[in-house]
Structure formats: structure tokens, C-alpha cells
């Protein structure tokens, strides 16, 4: 007998498979939005592990997404043409492999960025991750092998409802599962009081690095999905603004809440499309929204007076 959480996971995967099978009959615009929703859920939930549950402050989530997006796109475009696989094998075999590859490389980047900076206290992480995001952008802009500033186009559109929501469900499941264990309560303890956590025998650095690497892994996988959804990626698509967008979702949903952050990711994705007409004004709107929220509802939009983090 499987635990309830795994039954849920399988149920969501089943639903995603069914939806995917009939997706040809869905309105293509809404199909696109739905996949955008799935990708943003992955991004927000994975950042929530770092910024919400573990109490760190990363401003570089889009950077890890970029690492995943480019890695995964290179795998399918370069490797895909050389291996001579059938279209079915490409979509159902190579593509998920490319997502994992993107996740792994992003996770590795997370380790490289996090290991030195997470040892330090305070806001070093925010500064270092901010720098990381910019560095990744500049590197990609100057890397001709991946198209430089022009970006990378001609990426096959393998992303469908099934893959998007499979990765989203796995992300939610992993983060939820981690937190709902004695081991995982350690993330919350680190967020609450690092000194006390150390005094209780928790390796706080290890916890922070684990959260960071797992979060970066899923950001990378989300990047892979994004690349194979849009068919085209460029360095500027993963800039600071994108990171802020994800941070806003986490804050809006209530840092360190499972459901609230998912709801926020859905909501912000859906309203994003109409808001795009506003151009740069959109970021100002975001900033105002953030300030207003911090002043009036610092606990997040969707936090009902339930007991916090019940046992």
C-alpha cells in the first residue's frame, strides 16, 4: 500500500496524462497559459523551499532556470540530431533526460554558489545570487556556441501538459515530503533560529545547502520545460526581473506555505498576459504590489487564520 502522498502524486500524473491526450482539442492560448502556470508553480515552489521554509533569501532563481534551459535545449538540439532517434523517443525519452540534465547542472551551479555563501550569515546570499544571475546572463550573451545575445532558436516544442504537470507535481511532492518529516522540520528550525538549531545538533550549513541545491535543481528543470515550450530562449529572458517575478509569487503566497504559493503562482501567471501590454510599467506595478503587501499582509495573501505549520 502506497502512502497517501504518493497516491496523490500518481493521481496528478494520471490527470496530466489524460489532459495531455485531449489537449489537441483545447484552445491553444489557454493551453499555453496552462503550461506557463505549471512552469511557474515549479519555480515558485522550489524557491519557496529556499526563501520560505529555510528562511534564506535568493535573488537568483532565474539564473538557475537559465542554466537548466540552455543545458536542456543543447541536449535536445545537438544530441537529438546526432542520435537519430525516432520522434517518439525524442519526446518521451531524450526530452525528460534533458530536463534532468538541466536540473542537475542547475543544482551543481547551486552548490557552487551556495556552498561558500551559505556559510556566511545574513544577506550575503541575496547579494551573491543577485550577482550570479547577472554573471550567467553575461556569460550566455558572450557564448557563441549557444547563440550569444541573439539567443537560441529552433528548440523543438516537446513541452506538453503531461511533462509540465509531471515535473510540477514531483516538485510539490518532493518539497512537501521533505518538510513533512522529522528531518525536514530542520529546515523550519533553521529559518526560525540558526543558533538554536545548531545547539540542537542540526548542521545548519548542510540544511541550507540542501535546500538551495534542491531548489536550484527544480528551477533548472523548469528552465528546460520553458525552453521547449517557447522554442526560443535568450539571456535577457532570465534576468533579474524574472527572479523578482518568482520572489513575488513566494511572498504573495506567504513564505513557507505550500498551498498559498501554488495559488499565487497560478494567479500571477494568469494575470501576467494582459499585464504584458504595460511593458516596463509591469515591474513598477509589481513593486507597488509588493510594498502594499508587505505593509498590509506580510503573512501573504492567502493565509487564513489557520494554525501555522501544524504537526
Amino acid at each position: 500500500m502506497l502512502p497517501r502522498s504518493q497516491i496523490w502524486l500518481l493521481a496528478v500524473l494520471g490527470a496530466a496524462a489524460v489532459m495531455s491526450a485531449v489537449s489537441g482539442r483545447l484552445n491553444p492560448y489557454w493551453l499555453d497559459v496552462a503550461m506557463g502556470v505549471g512552469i511557474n508553480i515549479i519555480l515558485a515552489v522550489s524557491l519557496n523551499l529556499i526563501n520560505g521554509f529555510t528562511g534564506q533569501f535568493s535573488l537568483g532563481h532565474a539564473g538557475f532556470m537559465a542554466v537548466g534551459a540552455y543545458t536542456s535545449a543543447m541536449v535536445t538540439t545537438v544530441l537529438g540530431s546526432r542520435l537519430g532517434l525516432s520522434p517518439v523517443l525524442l519526446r518521451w525519452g531524450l526530452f525528460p533526460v534533458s530536463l534532468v540534465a538541466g536540473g542537475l547542472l542547475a543544482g551543481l551551479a547551486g552548490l557552487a554558489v551556495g556552498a561558500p555563501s551559505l556559510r556566511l550569515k545574513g544577506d550575503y546570499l541575496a547579494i551573491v545570487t543577485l550577482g550570479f544571475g547577472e554573471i550567467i546572463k553575461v556569460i550566455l550573451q558572450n557564448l557563441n556556441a549557444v547563440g550569444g545575445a541573439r539567443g537560441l532558436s529552433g528548440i523543438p516544442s516537446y513541452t506538453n501538459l503531461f511533462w509540465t504537470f509531471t515535473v510540477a507535481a514531483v516538485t510539490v511532492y518532493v518539497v512537501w515530503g521533505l518538510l513533512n518529516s522529522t528531518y525536514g522540520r530542520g529546515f523550519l528550525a533553521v529559518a526560525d533560529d540558526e543558533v538554536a538549531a545548531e545547539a540542537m545538533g542540526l548542521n545548519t550549513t548542510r540544511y541550507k545547502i540542501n535546500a538551495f541545491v534542491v531548489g536550484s535543481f527544480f528551477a533548472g528543470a523548469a528552465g528546460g520545460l520553458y525552453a521547449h515550450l517557447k522554442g526560443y530562449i535568450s539571456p535577457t529572458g532570465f534576468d533579474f526581473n524574472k527572479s523578482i517575478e518568482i520572489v513575488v509569487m513566494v511572498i504573495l503566497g506567504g513564505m513557507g506555505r505550500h498551498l498559498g504559493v501554488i495559488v499565487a503562482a497560478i494567479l500571477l501567471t494568469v494575470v501576467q498576459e494582459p499585464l504584458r501590454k504595460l511593458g516596463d510599467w509591469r515591474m513598477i506595478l509589481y513593486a507597488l504590489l509588493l510594498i502594499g503587501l508587505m505593509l498590509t499582509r506580510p503573512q501573504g495573501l492567502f493565509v487564513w487564520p489557520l494554525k501555522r505549520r501544524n504537526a
Partner: protein
Amino acid sequence: MSALLQLNQVTIRFGGLTAVSEVSGTVGQGELVGLIGPNGAGKTTVFNLVTGVYQPTSGTISFAGESLGRLRPFEITRRGIARTFQNIRLFPSLSVFDNVRVAFHLHLKHDAVHAVTRGPKFFGEETTLRERTRELLSIFNLERVQDEPARSLPYGDQRRLEIVRALATGPRLLLLDEPAAGMNPAEKVDLMRLIQFIQGKFKLAILLVEHDMKVVMGVCQRIHVLEYGRKIAEGTPAEIRSNPAVIGAYLGKDS
């Protein structure tokens, strides 16, 4: 009896201030030892030195024959030293239950991977830990509030919860920094009984910082006295009570 905890000429300076100066002393296996001294004498700093929050400027600290130099706080806890904090440091947003549960963490056989795969072994261990958590909470009569966030507890319960949480790490030496602060005399008596009870039940050595002389004299087998970071006396309660240096430094002013 070889000492469980041994401080050897331990000194720490913060800039120009020598907070602890050439302090030596021991705590034996299963012993209940008091650490007293006026405000600012360096008692909490000694705790921070023993638990690795600070590194001594000079001198050595060893536990069960092993030097603690350069170990990080969590590594020291894993070797069997647990503590409470003078200015309560619970995990405020976690439930009472989770505050204790998380401190069992260092006896876990499962890790992040098992938390995700969630096999039968994982659930088995979680069930055992829940039972042990409940058991510990019930000793301190805290199971009735186990689902409340720790921050919502009354002050006295928060202090007691800190002790429960420290016990969950399975220590051989427990450092208690003014555990009775802010309690009324009756509560203090209860707490001291409880401390003696857990000392026997868990075969603990305890180092106790407490300002209330009656309490300290009543429960401690031996007492170390600090003043301005130096150790000025050591002995049984009777010896300390009649020590002129102590009377001058501490009892004269504080009680």
C-alpha cells in the same frame, strides 16, 4: 571519577574585555554542579565556549576525554552536550511538538532521501519518534499544548520546553542557563525537583546557572563561582556559603 567536562585555563577576550579569564574546572559524570556569579561575571560566556558558539582565545575544553577545540556547535551537541538559553531561543513558529521532534533529529537513521521515498522504514521511525516526543513532553506536562506554536506558550512553559528540547538530543551533559528565571518561588521549587528527577532518570551531568542562592544551594552537589570572568571559589554548598570571597563578591550584593 574522571571528569566528563574539563576546562583548562580557558580565556576569551572580546576586544579589550576579558569576559572569561583563565578559568579551570570540571563537571563529573552524573554530577549536578552550580555555576554562579554576579551579573556579567561570564557564566553565559562559559556556556557559549563549551558549546562552541565562541572559540576560546586560549586554554582548552574537553568532553569525555576529547578536545572540543574547533568543533562546530552541532558537532558538540552530537557528542552529548545540550543546552538551554538564558534568553529563551525556541523555534517560535514551530509547534511545541515539533520543537522537540526536530531535536531528535540527530538520532535519525533516515535522511532527506527517505523523507522523499517515504517507505515503511521511514514511517516506522517517524512513529517511534512521535512516541518518544510525546513521552518526553508528558514528563514536563506539556503534551496538553503540543500542537500550539511555541511562541504562544506562557513564559514558564517556554523555559520548560527548552529543557525538553535539549533532552531530546540525548545529552550526557546538560547546561541550564537560568532555567528558573522569571518563575515564582513555588514554580522554582517544582522545576528544581524536576531537574533532579531528570538528572537521575537520564543519568545526566548538569551544569546549572541560577541567581537564586536558595535554589542553587539546595540542589547542587558542587558550585563554581565566577566574578569578573575569574573563578574565585569552588566547593560544596556549605563551603561556598562560608567562603569570604564569595560573600564579598556575590552574596553581599545580590541577596
